[in-house]
């Protein structure tokens, strides 16, 4: 009836309190220099020492600041808010500032590529213009009629809840550049534009739903979605992107009949 507590752990194995384990990690980065005499994309590997709390972005900073200053990528907030650093990490679109190295199996090289489907400007920087062009097309601003009220435009908690999910978008393009339909010819509006249209279509204060549905009823609009779910998986904000697209489809069908 006596429980025996055995302390067999060797004393040296106990890590120092508060110490963060460090390890070497190899990043395999897709590079492209437009100014090179023969501008062609190639892979380059960098090995740096990182810590268990480091994100992919920290390792990339280390490379840029200490190893090769020519490595080019976008980042601004470094905390998952600005949407600057979406890239293809181990084949999946993620924000470099939100992907922890330890979650990516740092014992193997981690591949980093620019997001697909948009023209590469340099290394990991892509031209976002086609992405923002379709964002602008869905009119991402409040549309109302009549005089502006003298106080706030009121809305109930339920009405706000209706489109809450799609307000979280940070326009990082992770979803649109993960979509195989967008990869094909870049003509599809893309999940991000539809998410941002959804944010206004289902806002009780907005009166532009008709126009936005009309715009997305285009042959390159919501009907090109094949419910692949890549967008939902890619979204760093956890937005249910595919569901939002289906809700827009449903609104179009109820409008048509």
């Amino acid at each position, binding site marked *: 009836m006596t429980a025996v507590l055995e302390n067999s752990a060797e004393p040296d194995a106990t890590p120092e309190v508060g110490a963060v384990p460090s390890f070497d990690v190899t990043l395999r980065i897709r590079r492209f220099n437009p100014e090179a005499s023969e501008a062609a994309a190639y892979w380059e590997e960098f090995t740096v020492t990182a810590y268990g709390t480091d994100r992919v972005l920290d390792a990339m900073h280390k490379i840029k600041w200490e190893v090769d200053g020519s490595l080019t990528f976008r980042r601004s907030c470094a905390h998952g808010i600005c949407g600057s650093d979406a890239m293809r990490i181990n084949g999946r679109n993620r924000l470099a500032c939100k992907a922890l190295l330890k979650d990516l199996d740092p014992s193997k090289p981690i591949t980093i590529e620019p997001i697909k489907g948009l023209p590469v400007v340099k290394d990991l920087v892509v031209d976002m213009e*086609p992405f923002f062009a379709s964002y602008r097309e869905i009119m991402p601003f409040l549309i109302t009629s009549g005089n502006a009220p003298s106080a706030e435009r009121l809305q109930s908690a339920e009405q706000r809840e209706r489109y809450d999910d799609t307000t979280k978008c940070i326009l990082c393009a992770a979803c649109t550049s993960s979509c195989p339909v967008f990869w*094909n010819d870049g003509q599809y509006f893309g999940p991000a534009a539809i998410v941002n249209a959804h944010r206004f279509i289902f806002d009780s204060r907005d009166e532009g739903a008709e126009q936005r549905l009309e715009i997305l009823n285009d042959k390159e609009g919501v009907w090109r979605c*094949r419910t692949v779910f890549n967008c939902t998986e890619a979204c760093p904000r956890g937005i249910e992107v595919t569901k939002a697209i289906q809700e827009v489809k449903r609104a179009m069908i109820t409008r*048509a009949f």
Partner: protein
Amino acid sequence: MSETTAAPELAAPRAPRNRRSTRTNYELYGWLFMRASGVLLLVLIFGHLYMNLMVGDGINAIDFAFVGGKWSSPLWQTWDLLMLWLAMIHGTNGVRTIINDYAERVGTRVVLKSALYLAFTITVVLGTLVIFTFEPCPAGADPELLASICFP
């Protein structure tokens, strides 16, 4: 005098979207049709398979007489006609989608879709013709091979 260095030539961004207005409801109807016809095809195809392969002698009963007997009945004529048309429109529209999703160049799309629509037309025309003009009791045929309805 200020001198400017020319910006390096970058790979051109994608050509600006050249969207003719395509805001008709065609894609909407197509999307709905895929689902509606899918549900009907489920009944038609499995009903067809059950009647041909499971009932009675099953697959061993299928011969010229079996087909001749079936196509003498307006029920099976209608059933098969509906199955032919729905499956062909459904399948053709599905392949059209796949071509749009995978063919990158306009020329490739035009060629593939032309071949698709040609195949659709030939199959539907021939199939419909056969269902309505099938002669179950051709004169001078071996009576062994004919359906019982040929001997009133």
